[in-house]
Structure formats: structure tokens, C-alpha cells
């Protein structure tokens, strides 16, 4: 799932997304997480409209991402969020720390 080559290949995409801002379109709070995410739960997953669009990828400028640094009051449609880089999940058995995109309240 997270090979070093794949992480390296995603660097440009991650860099292009950092700092972008948008608004929450819909959200949930994951209470029962998949493998590798148990130390983070519960955590919100949100769909965000990014007005500037999403560079180099298909789609209409929306992304699905995990919300970090959150409180209950941030869980609202229309809430402004910004793209940040974070550790995605627990390290793999090979010791690779997977970094990627999350969003945090503005």
C-alpha cells in the first residue's frame, strides 16, 4: 500500500496541494477505524470543495481527507479548512512512515 517508490512519486502532488483552502461539503466521524488507524480514532473524514481545483487529477476540485486539530464545532458544512501534510497512519512493518495530505480548520 505504501511503498517508498509510491511515496516518492506522490511528492509533487502533495507539494501542489499544501496550503490550499476550501469548505467542508459533507463529513463523518470514524469510530471504528481500519487497520493502521486505530491510534487516531475517533477522527473525522470530510469531503472538501477546493475552489482552485485539484492539480493534475481528475475530479471537480473536491478531495476526501481526514480532519485534524478539530473540535466538535468544526464539524459543519461550509467550515473552512486548509490542506496540511501529516503522517497518514501507523508505520508499516517495513518501518516506512507514510506521509500525505490531511486538512485542518482555518
Amino acid at each position, binding site marked *: 500500500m505504501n511503498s517508498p517508490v509510491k511515496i516518492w512519486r506522490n511528492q509533487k502532488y502533495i507539494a501542489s496541494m499544501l496550503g490550499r483552502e476550501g469548505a467542508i461539503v459533507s463529513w463523518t466521524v470514524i469510530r471504528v477505524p481500519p487497520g493502521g488507524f486505530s491510534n487516531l480514532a475517533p*477522527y473525522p473524514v470530510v469531503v472538501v470543495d477546493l475552489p482552485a481545483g485539484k492539480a493534475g487529477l481528475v475530479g471537480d476540485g473536491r478531495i476526501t481527507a*481526514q480532519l485534524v486539530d478539530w473540535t466538535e464545532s468544526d464539524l459543519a458544512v461550509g467550515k473552512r479548512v486548509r490542506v496540511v501534510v501529516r503522517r497518514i497512519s501507523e508505520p508499516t512493518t517495513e518501518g516506512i512512515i507514510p506521509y500525505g495530505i490531511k486538512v485542518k480548520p482555518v
Partner: protein
Amino acid sequence: MNVYITGAATTKFGELWATSPRQLAGEAVGGALKDAGIGIRRIQALFVGNMLSGILGGQEHLGAFFAEELGITAPAFKIEGACASGGLALHNAVNSVLSGQYDTVVVLGVEKMTDHKPEDVATALMGAGSEEERSAGATFPGLYAILACAYMREYGTTREQLAAVAVKNHYHASLNPNAQFHTTITIEQVVRSSRIADPLRLLDCSPISDGASAVVVSNKKSAHGILVAASTVATDSLGLAGRASLTQLAATKEAGKRAYARAGITPKDIDVAEVHDCFTIAEILAMEDLGFFAKGKAAAAIAAGETRLGKSRHLVVNPSGGLKGCGHPVGATGVKQIVELVDQLRGRAGARQVQGATIGLAHNVGGSGATAVVHILKK
């Protein structure tokens, strides 16, 4: 050329720890062949619907795997389309007969899920989503919860109305000897069950299940053959972020529209439907996307019992118990829906029989709506 379902059978669905995938397949295919009144040598091809055997069990090459188990050397194929694998396998089987390549083929839907840890199953199922959704730590309940959040906000649907879908489907399952659950549940129990992905709770979610279902597809009409009046597939973006709307599944709308046109009918003509209720919100979306209710009206109609056995005057939805009550071995589900419709149209569904049913619709979804398969069957 017409194509018929001439035999249909399913195993019991549930936590079948004592039963292997090979045994499940043998039981389902054996039952379907017996129902069709033919021997295995008449089968010219095998289509296997399955999603998780590779990632969970380490076993791929399922066409040959199950052909070996059945003792045949006919052409055999595995078809994968997440939770729509079963419906997709049937679509391909129907096309293969329509092409004139084969006269009689078997479709087997099979999944073995309870051998594995629930978090491993949750991770494996996310193979049906997008990379971005996996990186977000989303689960399938989570993706449908996002749809539920958007839908409830738009149409003012209540938590209790969502719960009514699960209550209805558990009631239907209580009448189905092959269902995973035989207990009825209440609205109160659903809305107080443990939280999985807000606003969805445990009893909004279909379970992790084992099971297999099989049908015989043929261009020769037998005494009890059921006509496949339409078989359609539509595709949408893999992830939710690629969708223009989060309050409908466009693939379902498209597959449904084309199926009605192909069969020359309208939604009003359907007597019985098996739809993809992997989560309670999914049945509400399906009811609207398939044209049974106007946008925003399905939740209240379901809660009022308009699609419940014994109460509905024109359409009964998920008499098998659906994915929620009957169980959801993901690759088997799409084929089980067809088995249920065949039983209903042949008038042999026992306590859950929809009286006088002559036209049935099956709706099978892969992922959060990236694949939708619709079949219309006629007596």
C-alpha cells in the same frame, strides 16, 4: 434471442466457520443445477463473482479454482467489481449467451469473510474505494455516512427514518430460512446501537458474512425458466470526491434508466425488488435513483411501511432481508438477489412470498456507487 434463469440456489448466509469456500460453491452450484434439472456436463462456462479471496485468503485464479472443485474443465472466469462482483458476473454470463458463444452457463457468487479479523476485512473492502479515501482513514460505513450526512441535511431525513430501513429488512429476514439474522429489531435498538461512523450505527450496517449463491443461465426456456428482460451496468468515479452530487448515485440512475428502457417497462411495473442496502442510507438512495419515489421522499415512504411485506400494495423491497438482514458476503450478494427474485417469481418463497409477483428488479452496487448493476426478471 432470449436468455433465462433456469435454476437458482443459495447457501445459508452467516458466520459459517465450519464450511470452506469450496464447500459453499459446491452446495450453491449443485443446488442450482438440480433446480435446473441438468448435470454439470451441460455447463459450457463458469462465471465466478468474488471480491476478497486474493487480499484476504491469498487465493486468486478463482475460475480454475472453482472449476476444479466442480470437476469441470469448461472455460472459467473470475469477475471482480467490489460488492457488485456477483451482478457483474451475471451480466457477463448473460452477454456470453447472447453472443451465441455458449448455450448454458453457471454464475457463482461466493465470499468467505469471517475467517479474518474485522479490521483486516474493513481494510480489504477499502480496496473498492480511492487511494485518497484510504489515506483519509475512511471505511465503507464512513463513505456511506458521508452520503447520509449530505442527504439528511438536504432533505431533513431523521435518524429514525434511516433506522426504519433496517427494521423492515430484519423483519423480512426473520421469514427467510437462509438469512444470517432471524431476529426482528426496533427503531429504538437501531438508534441506540454502537456508533460506527456518524450518523451510522451498528444496526445501520450490513454484517460481515460467508455464503455462496448460484444461477444457471441458458438460451433454452425450461418449464420454470425466468426471462432476463434487462441486464445493465453503469460506472461512476471510484471515490466520492469525483461526484457532482452526494445525495444520489448517478450510476444507479443510469443503469436503472437503461434497464427500464430495455425491458420496456416503468418503475411502477415492478412487483418485487432486491436492492443494495449495504447501509440504511443506501436503500433510501436506491429507491429514489431507481425511480420508485421522488427525490427526498423515499425515507418517509419506507418508514410508513410502503415497501414492507404484508403492508405494501404494489412494491415489496428486499423480501430476502436485503444485505442488512440476509447478510452480505460481498461477491455472493448480487447472485443471491437473483436467486431471491427467481424464488419470488416462481411462487416458492414461502412465508415471505410477494403474492402475484410477475416482474422483479435486482440492484447491485460496487464501492460507494462506482459500479451499479441492474437486472429485470420476468415470469
